[in-house]
């Protein structure tokens, strides 16, 4: 079977000692930052990106991907043990997970999370392997018009899924596109918005923007209310779930995996939406409805499976279309470009060992996570106790060194500080930075595709609705936008974010 031979190729790539080692480092670091509140995967990947320059591309990408799904895992550990979601995607896990821990069933909750995540990770790996190649084959037929429409869809989706005001999110996207245009224009060589600063001719690096908005911005935000973190860590007891627990876990894990995988593919969502959706669906259909919020194991198993599945299937648009769907995959695009790989549908044919190696490494990484987490629980618990005032100067140091080492230019440090202020101010005004970063990456690409599409159609803008695939994508984008404007849906959108 072709699928098996592909996976075998992936296994050969992923199972070399070096790649196994960096995969391990990735998931280990990921779990650590997932455990530490106030440091997310976006800022971490941005910080470590310059370090991966010395590694071969496959190894670098394996490690960076590991940080992302490892962080989902670490986030749930703190949700359960200390009622602090380390990551946005594990917010719902606190509802029942911490209740279980209070009842002395932390072990069972952690096991439900681990088993659910591993199962979901395995299924999602196969889903990428199965759906990746056909999607890439379709994408190979895309012309500039289709790519432009696809990016419109991606940006609309990121707006729809953003928290807070829709208008603010649209504005963030437009602003991101504009900032992306800074630098020399590809066609004419005109220096745009560079204010005579020589270093800006190449544009602003996305790592600089990401570290500023997600790293520095987040630090300033956390300094705002520097309350004492409760270090009342629940004791880990009852390490293994009972037979009844197992029985109650099976269906939620299956449903969570399915929901998470499907929603993870959507641009802009990644794992967050899936975990919320899985929890609310489970709450509606479960036989043990009355136990939800009081320590129902279903309320841990379903969202945990969903967020892990989503974290992984969110790589599908990246690997097959070359289009990032969230800030993390946007950074992966940057990593690929730095390593001389043009992300897009051709990667799968031109770099099969990279594509399949990364997919198989995700499965191996999930296995590491399950095996590692029990023996290391004690260490993670100690890590939660690191006070923030000792942590953030370190984060700042890594950001500063990381951004400086990109080009050995001080200007990147200054720009990072500027974007830190912007990120903080915008977050105070209820504007999420994620859609902006996505738009920032897509800006120059969109302009180029728009240009080419109009050149091919002799300036006729109708080309976008005359080509069937392009039209379909635009209709999907319009539908997505409409759903937010329909009152019933926008209400559930608010509820989902505020629950």
């Amino acid at each position, binding site marked *: 079977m072709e699928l098996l031979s592909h996976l075998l190729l992936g296994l050969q790539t992923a199972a070399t000692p070096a790649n196994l080692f960096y995969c391990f480092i990735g998931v280990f670091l990921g779990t650590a930052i997932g455990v530490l509140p106030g440091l997310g995967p976006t800022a971490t990947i941005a910080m470590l990106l310059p*370090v991966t320059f010395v590694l071969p591309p496959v190894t670098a990408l394996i490690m960076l991907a590991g940080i992302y799904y490892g962080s989902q895992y670490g986030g749930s550990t703190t949700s359960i043990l200390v009622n602090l979601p380390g990551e946005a995607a594990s917010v719902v896990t606190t509802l029942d997970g911490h209740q279980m821990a209070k009842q002395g069933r932390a072990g069972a909750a952690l096991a439900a999370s681990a088993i659910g995540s591993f199962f979901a990770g395995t299924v999602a790996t196969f889903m990428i392997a199965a759906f990746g190649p056909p999607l890439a084959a379709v994408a190979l037929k895309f012309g500039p018009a289709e790519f432009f429409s696809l990016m419109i869809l991606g940006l609309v989706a990121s707006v729809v899924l953003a928290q807070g005001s829709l208008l603010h999110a649209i504005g963030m996207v*437009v602003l991101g596109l504009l900032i992306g245009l800074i630098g020399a224009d590809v066609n004419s060589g*005109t220096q745009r918005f560079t204010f005579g600063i020589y270093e800006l001719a190449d544009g602003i690096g996305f790592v600089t923007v990401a570290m500023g908005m997600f790293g520095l911005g987040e630090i300033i935000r956390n300094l705002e209310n520097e309350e004492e973190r409760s270090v009342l860590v629940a004791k880990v007891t009852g390490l293994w779930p009972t037979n009844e627990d197992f029985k109650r876990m099976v269906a939620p894990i299956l449903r969570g995996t399915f929901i998470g995988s499907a929603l993870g593919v959507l641009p802009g969502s990644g794992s967050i939406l899936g975990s919320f959706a899985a929890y609310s669906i489970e709450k509606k259909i479960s036989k043990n409805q009355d136990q939800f919020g009081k320590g129902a194991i279903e309320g841990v198993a379903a969202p945990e499976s969903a967020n892990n599945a989503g974290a992984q299937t969110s790589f599908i648009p990246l690997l097959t279309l070359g289009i990032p769907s969230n800030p993390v995959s946007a950074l992966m695009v940057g990593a690929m470009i730095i390593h001389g790989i043009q992300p897009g549908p051709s990667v799968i044919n031109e770099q099969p060992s990279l594509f399949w190696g990364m997919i198989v490494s995700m499965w191996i990484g999930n296995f590491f996570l399950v095996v590692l987490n029990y023996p290391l629980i004690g260490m993670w618990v100690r890590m939660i106790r690191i006070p923030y005032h000792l942590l953030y100067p370190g984060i*700042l*140091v890594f950001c500063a060194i990381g951004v400086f*080492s990109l080009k050995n230019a001080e200007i990147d440090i200054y720009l990072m*500080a500027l974007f830190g202020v912007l990120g903080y101010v915008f977050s105070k005004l209820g504007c999420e930075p994620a859609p902006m970063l996505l738009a920032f990456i897509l800006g120059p690409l969109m302009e180029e595709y728009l240009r080419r599409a109009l050149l091919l159609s002799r*300036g006729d803008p109708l080309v976008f609705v005359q080509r069937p695939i392009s039209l379909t994508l635009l209709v999907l984008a319009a539908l997505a936008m409409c759903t937010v404007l329909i009152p019933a849906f926008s209400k559930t959108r608010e509820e989902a974010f505020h629950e």
Partner: protein
Amino acid sequence: MIRNFKDFWTGLIYMFFGTSAVIIARDYGMGTALRMGPAYFPTVLGSLLVVIGVIAVVRSFLQSGSPVGGFTVKGMVLVVTSTLAFGLLVKGAGLVVALPVLVISSGYASQRFRWGTALGLAAGLTLFCVLVFLKGLGVPLPIWGSWFGG
């Protein structure tokens, strides 16, 4: 009266960036839809941003919203200036000076700042970075800057 300050200020920021983009882009060639010049896309986006900003400002008078909330001026100023200081010092003075300055001055933003722990943290992080980034990963960073003949 302004009933939603978040909308109001966001709108003003969007209008500022949008207008600046359109004005600056006037110096570049506009081109036609068939052959888009360098000013085409920025002008379209800038105008769109102005429109969004205007809608937000108008809406801020009509719909009430949650207040913006207090800014941490101390945190923002210290984090930003310590980052800028790192940029100014890194090539001239080198990591051995720039890193402790960054760690201590940014750490000062915390209510729980203590000189003892801050100095220890600065020393530890500097040693760690020199060992890991320079010796371990071979990232070319100046330990001692040009001012010290490094």
